[in-house]
């Protein structure tokens, strides 16, 4: 570091000379003197050099590294539980989903399908099971005949009324 004599001889207001600044940041007597020449040097004197954090550099670094390791471990765990990222994994997931959806659709379709005409001797197991019964005519719970033609009209959903038509000459006219 330069001497006080050299400093005072070389000091200029607004200086950026590193050696001058180094001196004024270390020497209280010269700071006092320089502040009378250039008051801006007051706050400049606070700078320069490097500072040690409380507890020392070793403790500081080990704190940082502990946190870094913790975060690395966390992010590794998160990566293991994340959605598949490779295209083969994505393709496998998409294929599984597609198969599941197609299967469900087929089952649903099969359940919905009912025969339009029941051939041969027919048994009506359930007639007009609707909760809203608007007719006062007698209810036929079951019907059995060898000559009858029984037609069930397909329904749109589970809540729809099941319509069954029975064509039989033996049936009473008012039924």
């Amino acid at each position, binding site marked *: 570091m330069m001497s006080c004599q050299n400093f005072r001889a070389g000091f200029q207001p607004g200086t950026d000379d590193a050696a001058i600044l180094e001196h004024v940041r270390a020497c209280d007597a010269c700071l006092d003197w320089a*502040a009378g020449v250039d008051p801006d040097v*007051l706050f*400049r004197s*606070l700078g320069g050099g490097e*500072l*040690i*954090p*409380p507890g020392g550099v070793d403790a500081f670094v080990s704190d940082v590294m502990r946190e*870094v390791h913790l*975060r690395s471990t966390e992010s590794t765990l998160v990566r293991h539980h994340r959605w598949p990222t490779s295209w083969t994994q994505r393709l496998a997931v998409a294929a599984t989903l597609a198969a599941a959806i197609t299967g469900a659709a087929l089952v649903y379709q099969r359940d919905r399908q009912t025969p339009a005409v029941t051939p041969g001797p027919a048994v009506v197991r359930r007639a007009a099971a609707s909760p809203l019964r608007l007719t006062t005519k007698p209810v036929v719970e079951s019907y059995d005949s060898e000559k009858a033609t029984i037609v069930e009209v397909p329904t749109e959903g589970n809540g729809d009324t099941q319509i069954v038509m029975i064509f039989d000459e033996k049936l009473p006219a008012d039924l």
Partner: protein
Amino acid sequence: MIPTKESIEPDDRQLVRTIRDGQTDAFEQLVRRKTSKVYALCYRIIGNAEDAKDISQLVFIKLWENLEKYDPQYAFDTWLYRMVTNVAIDFMRNKQSRENAVNSNLRLVKTSADAEQGVNVQRKEVESVFNEVATVLSPKQKTIFVMNQMEDLPSAEIARILGCRESTVRNHLFNARKLMQAQLQKRFPEYARLWSDR
């Protein structure tokens, strides 16, 4: 020729490359190398040792998380300082909104007799005066003032760090000086006399 410590140690860019290749130990080396610098800048911007330590640690953690984004064609310190200033300015903004009312009632007490006798500059006291008068600065103004006046960074480098124009940096510096002198006049007339006596 026996290699010196400097010639053996990798530079910042080489260290970053090594870290990206998966060597965590190299990151420890980088943290150790930059700790004093980062802490000093944080401390001068924030003005409190414990907060500065916490903010410095946060900077290094962010550095670890964002190391992939570093472009080696730019100086590592510029990128690092940008991270420091971003984190410190955010912290200052939050802190300022919390403590504005309290700080406005604080001041260092000096008698008029002291002022008459002139200023015998005590470094610790200058630090307190700076922290007091700098409360009128915006976080960005204070950051720029600290980088220029205390870290001795030229305005062109500060502009690169903050991602703004050099003229913006010079404007901030000019305004910061003006605001601090007004504040000195109001709260520390014994110091303000130094400027008026020139």
